[in-house]
């Protein structure tokens, strides 16, 4: 038997994809997506996870996965007895694809997982109530995709909404079945600043809520939170003066934008926000928290 030359090193594989500023993927989404289909994604708080590539995940088997996952969720939720796949379980899990939600064309198609509880009512047309949703998507993983063999599917971002217990169950099933790893994704203040800048610059048709930035100051006994709210038109006006090329955002522009906001605050309150930590950004388009929660409003 020929001896392998190198077992575990020399693999040019990148590590966990860092949450890149989602500028490109976001603008990509707005162009390709059917608004109705993804309406249910809006106005929900999503918790972010990063997922390693999944082994032997097949888009053709989504129905089978739904059945298995339904049984698994039912078994974990019930007490005692085992659960056979296929029986009437009281909950129903569906896996489906979400077309259009990808950064570039090479990205994998997004996958949506929904847990719906079977209605107890005897009506035939009683709708199942969705109690939990989660979706996987791939964010501009060109570099990653090049180096990963075919057996692996790169859906490196997972967003979950609903009870943590369901997230745990679904996540465990995926981990066991496809040998992947879920880890909570946190958003650094740098990335939050990017989001603030980009979202401010987006055009919003409907009513614009104020742009709010929350900063955290470590204090004893409890940390102090400073909330800085800006009229969104003013913020947009500021951003328009900063941004040079429409459609393109650079780090310098983001820094300048934030510095302007900081100096304005300082002028009024004599507090240097640049020394604090940005923890939450919320605009009329979306909001994001550094713990890895985002909410898209439009």
């Amino acid at each position, binding site marked *: *038997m*020929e*001896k*392998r*030359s*190198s*077992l*575990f*090193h*020399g*693999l040019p*594989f990148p*590590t*966990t994809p860092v949450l890149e500023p989602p500028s490109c993927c976001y603008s990509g989404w707005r162009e390709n997506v059917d608004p109705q289909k993804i309406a249910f994604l809006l106005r929900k708080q999503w918790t972010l996870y990063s997922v*390693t*590539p999944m*082994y*032997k*995940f*097949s888009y053709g*088997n989504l129905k*089978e*996965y739904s059945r*298995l996952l339904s*049984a*698994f969720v*039912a*078994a*974990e939720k*019930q*007490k*005692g*007895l*085992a*659960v*056979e*796949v296929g*029986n009437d379980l009281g909950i129903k899990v569906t896996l489906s694809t979400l077309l259009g939600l990808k950064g570039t064309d090479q990205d994998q198609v997004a996958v949506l997982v929904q847990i719906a509880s079977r209605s107890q009512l005897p009506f035939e047309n009683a709708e199942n109530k969705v109690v939990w949703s989660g979706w996987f998507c791939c964010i501009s993983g060109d570099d990653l995709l090049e180096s*990963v*063999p075919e*057996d*692996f599917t790169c859906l490196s971002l997972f967003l979950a909404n609903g009870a943590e217990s369901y*997230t*745990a169950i679904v*996540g*465990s099933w995926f*981990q*066991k*079945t*496809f*040998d*992947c*790893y*879920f*880890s*909570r994704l946190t958003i650094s203040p740098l990335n939050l600043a990017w989001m603030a800048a980009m979202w401010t610059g987006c055009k919003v048709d409907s009513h614009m809520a104020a742009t709010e930035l929350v900063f955290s100051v470590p204090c004893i006994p409890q940390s102090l939170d400073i909330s800085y709210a800006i009229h969104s038109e003013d913020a947009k006006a500021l951003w328009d003066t900063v941004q040079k090329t429409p459609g393109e955002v650079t780090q310098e522009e983001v820094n300048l934008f934030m510095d302007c906001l900081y100096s304005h605050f300082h002028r009024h309150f004599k507090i240097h926000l640049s020394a604090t930590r940005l923890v939450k950004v919320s605009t009329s388009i979306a909001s994001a928290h550094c713990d890895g929660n985002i909410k898209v409003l439009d």
Partner: protein
Amino acid sequence: ALPSWEIEGMQQRENAKNPKQALQVRRSSLSAWQIGERTAGPKTADLKSAQKHEKGKQQSASDRAGNSTQDHLEQALTYFERGKSSDNFNEVLQKHLATVESIALQRGLSPEGLDVLLNVALSGHLVNTRILKCLIPASVIAESSVVSAVSWLCVGKCSGSTQLLFLRWLIAMFDFIDHKEKLHALYGFFFCSLQDEKLGMQPHLQALLSLYKLFCPELVSITLPAKMKTYFKNSESLWKAAINTIRRRNQGTSPTSQQLILGTGHPQSRKRKWNTQLILPACSTDANNPTRSKEINHADILSHSESFPVEQLHTFSQLLQNIHRLEFPSQMGSVLRNSLLLHYINCIKDESIYLRLYYWMGQTLQEECTWYKLDNQQYEEEFKDFLDIVYKTECFLQEGFSSCEEFLYKSLPLWDGFCCRSQILRLVSWIPLSSFSEMKPHLCEPLAQLFFTSSLYFKCSVLESLKELLQNWLNWHVMQLDVESDPKISPLNTTLSGLVNSVAELIHFVGWIATVALHLENNATFLLYFILDFYETHSCPSLVFICVRIQRALKSLPFVHSFRYRTNLVAAKENELIKKTILQFKFSSQTYQEYNQYIMAMVGCLWTSSAFQKDIHPQGIRLDPEVLKKTRVQEVRNSFNIVHHPALMGYAILFLQQAWPEDKTLNFNLIKGRRWNWYLEYLYVQGLQGLKLFIESSINRVSQVSQTKSGNVQV
């Protein structure tokens, strides 16, 4: 039917109505559990028992004051052992139960205690559920207690739910039972009782049996539907956390701790996040992934053989017999606990295996690192265990993981040098060979920073781990020499020149930090030992003695390794000539020159008594006469020769004593001329073979005049 303790409670309330009676009853109950005393019965209320009550009260007060928890436990166990169904005193019962529970959760229970409590729990009275829930073993469970517990089940004294809880407990604690032969014989009973259920053969029971059939097909005789897929709720969670905590506390003296289950955290702490991967996944087959099942079935049709499920793999011979049809586990991380599977992946050239392991390990290391993410600080013990497992696996495979390497590069700059120190330094020794300039900013700089600012022991540990690193690189390269014959496979540029460059730079780095360390630690002998240990591993001449201050810090010169280096050079040259292949590696003539100068310097020290004289090498040991004067060492020139060298002076003294026993003054100058040769022979006889090799190879003596000749190398 009311649970038994409620019935007791009712009786208690009845008793309380009549306080006198209650007192009598209490008195006798106290006397009932006095150690070493037996009572006639629970209802005696005579003076004798009143006296006993007083005595018991005093005793119990002092007991409580001075006794250890062990005594409380013994009291509680004795109470339970003796307690018949007539002992219905809720308060005392609760007290003892609380004692047992708290001790069980802290330390676990001894086999004898478990025996008592199992019998109590299953004999149909008292608070069965609570007792069963706190049956955590400290070490092992005696098989006899399980057998007797099962016999209680046959009698049918306990309720169905208690039976069920007992079975769950048995499953959770199965691995703690010391012997299982008798238990295996009882399986017939278990299957009978399953069929006895009025519900009949339920689908979940069928599923359970089909799972069982996977492990022991010869024991399950009934036919079962083949492709049943079922999920079971994880039932051992009740006890899992407590088991692991106690096992860790008792330092793993349990003989049954073969599993590599790591803890789920302390019971008091917040619930552990669900995606923690410090719990190594169990080796289970991939049957749940329909993609893979379909592929396997397809292959079955062609090959007419089933794949061998990984749960049945227990021995090496099984591995060899089934190696062509072995399935991989569904989670690749589980191979870390299974040495047979490690053998298997060692042979298979499947990239997806490495990738899966790479992703899993990389994520686990990053997520669970205790200084990377501050939330993890309380789980340091588990992280240490995990790092130990990774290290053992690397030793087993004789190769380092690249995910581990990346983890080290990312975490070393943030490391405090204290947390998981020995584990981290051991992992450093398995960093794979690569270009040193890549390693330098990630490994050398943070390590150097920690090195200079830490204790002597840390410095020595780092030197040792760098020595191991060097050794691993050399070993690995030796293994690669076979593969080298196929020049198209060389993803790492692991040619001889690459190796030598990296090795040379590593040695240079170690030389630098060692020099500074010696200054910082004032030439501590302990440190010197480790430095010399490092230099013995490789075969380049030691530069240490050049850098060391002249005040006799150095105890020995590295004879043997310089000879080895020379041998390597010669061998390489010969290989080149013999094989007539154009190796990418070329020893430059500059290397030969350097080598020659080292040899000359060493010979000058040892032989010709011309230490520190002329040496044009930039790292040579020439020192100005002024400097030499400052050291106030007389006769510097011969202070390092074979007579006066600190390491050899002892031999010189012994030689003089043997040669001139009547001469009390030690006159080293007598050793010259003929006697120099005798002395040399004496040294050889004393076992200094390295010295012999060096002198014979590097020094060509012409009559009595010693000359130096830089080796026999045909440059």
